[in-house]
């Protein structure tokens, strides 16, 4: 693997706090490479994050970084984007952060189609607090707060976003970091609210309790289940059972909120 751009990392802040086998490092690295590939000016890039394991990534990245409150990253980002529409914002959230406590902000960001790049690191669990179930925990899986398996059904995050008005939705995973990187690049270049769901293993708080094996086992499983959107088009329902769609699920054009606002007051933001 090639060396990451050192300029974009706060190497003094490393090592990171994440557990061995955690996918957060892989997702963060994919993000850094993606930002590099976009060619964005470093000073224009802002990393916003919520609260949770993955949100700590902001502290390790050498940009203007904003580590906010639990669930509210998109709202902080909305204010910043509206004040400074020229900035390129990447908003890192965990699955609980984004879809439970932050669910309202998530759907409304999608509805506005504001030009933010939401990267949701989905490890199906609240990791930092030790393994409670989230709205993205698959039904039946165990958690400290669902010792007999959760009865709740999980969101399909990308369909939720699409229904709410998001104009770009993609899914990647930590087992296929190159593809994830490409998806983030496409999200960043898309003008509007972009959602990238990055599946990521949490062997400690999720895998162990659900007997999913080691981090390597979890990554292998992730890769095996993954099926590209293109390939899935030729598969029937039975074949798609237990598989996860990978790639760009949708990318459509619609007016972007910040641009529309500034246009409405007679200002061109380019």
């Amino acid at each position, binding site marked *: 693997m090639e060396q990451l751009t050192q300029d974009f990392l706060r190497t003094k*802040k490393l090592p990171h706090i994440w557990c061995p086998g955690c996918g957060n490092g892989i997702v963060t690295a994919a993000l850094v490479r993606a930002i590099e590939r976009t060619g964005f000016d*470093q*000073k*224009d890039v*802002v990393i*916003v994050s919520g609260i949770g394991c993955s949100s700590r990534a*902001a*502290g390790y990245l*050498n*940009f*203007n*970084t*904003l*580590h*906010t*409150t639990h669930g*509210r990253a998109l*709202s*902080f*980002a*909305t*204010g*910043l*984007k*509206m*004040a*400074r529409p*020229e*900035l390129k914002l990447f908003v890192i959230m965990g699955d609980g952060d984004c879809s439970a406590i932050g669910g*309202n*902000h998530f759907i*409304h960001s999608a509805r506005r189609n504001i030009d933010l790049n939401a990267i949701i690191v989905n490890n199906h669990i609240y990791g930092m607090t030790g393994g409670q179930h989230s709205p993205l925990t698959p039904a039946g899986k165990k958690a400290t707060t669902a010792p007999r398996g959760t009865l709740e059904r999980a969101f399909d995050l990308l369909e939720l976003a699409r229904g709410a008005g998001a104009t770009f939705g993609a899914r990647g995973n930590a087992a296929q970091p190159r593809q994830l990187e490409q998806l983030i690049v496409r999200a960043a270049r898309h003008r509007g609210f972009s959602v990238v769901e990055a599946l990521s293993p949490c062997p400690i708080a999720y895998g162990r309790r659900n007997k999913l094996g080691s981090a390597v086992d979890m990554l292998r499983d992730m890769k095996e289940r993954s099926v590209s959107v293109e390939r899935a088009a030729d598969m029937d329902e039975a074949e798609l059972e237990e598989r996860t769609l990978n790639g760009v699920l949708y990318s459509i054009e619609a007016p972007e909120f910040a641009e529309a*606002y500034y246009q*409405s*007051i007679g*200002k061109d933001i380019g």
Partner: protein
Amino acid sequence: MPEAKPVLMQGNEACAVGAINAGVRFYAGYPITPSTEVAEQMAAMLPEIGGVFIQMEDEIASMAAVIGASIGGMRTLTATSGPGFSLKQENLGYAIMAEIPCVVINVQRMGPSTGVPTAPAQGDVMQARWGTHGDHPIIVFSPASVYESYYLTIAAVNLSQKLRQPVIVLLDEVIGHMREKVLIPEGKLMVEKTSDKQVPHDWKPYDDKGLTPLVPFGFGHYYHVTGLFHDQYGFPTGDPMQVERALDRIHEKLVKYRDEIILTNYIGHKEPRVAIVTYGCTVRSARAVVKKAYWQNRLPVGLLSLQTIWPFPEKEIEALAKQADVIIVPEMNMGQLVGEVERFARGEAKVVPLNRYDGEMINPDQISEEVGRWL
């Protein structure tokens, strides 16, 4: 004085106009009675001057968006009322911790809970002080007129910028909704520059040496902003020494600039036997009483009105208690600020609460009756 034409203006409207004149160019909010006119006014004015107005999905998001915009370098405002103020508290604490300037207008209504949305009350005095968790400093202004709503909002914006500290303007429904004649300089910008110097190359966002200007995102200073305890560069720390220093830092700036923060006004007898201490709309009733008792009848009565209620004007109360035998504290709640008055009277004067909590204003007759009892 710049040219000022008398106009009829509402308290809420005056907050909006004050904010604009103080350079506020970003508003995020959520509708709630009795503060909605602030949002409506901002929605009308901001697009005209190139500013941003956004109605967010809820109160929490409004507070977050305001902080985000402040980090982008804009002067920001949000307005709400009791229930919404409760929802804003977590992010308000974030702004205090991360030292992000912003101004929150809270037009109080009768609570707890949904309460009586259109009835006046002063029940959020302690929420304004202690609403968010943890030891934290806060600045709270309490206007007693439409004009005070205007200039205290300006003061709030400027102080907030200077100290990188959220400031709350705590109106009550009476002041927020009443209209009165005011003299407001038209189109006059009251922006106090917090720093017009170039950012020094060794700039640190939370410099141990004291106040540092906020350098907005997007200018090549790659610092970190977090609600975690942080070092002078903004990075998380759990080191006990640094934690203590960080907490001292956010408190000390308010102590250092106390004289700019604490605004009070005294009228009446120099050595009053009975003094009234109050704030917000209740000041008006108290002033009517003192005018009659002292100006007309030369009775030993005085009124200390508090435009700043937090940080609490300790010295002013200490001094007053040395003069007065009795201090009456009228409040439209069950007794919130009276406890502080009692604490800083230090037994030098008898402190008497006068409370009303039926959703009506305390009127001059009530205060007059209480004053008469102690004269």
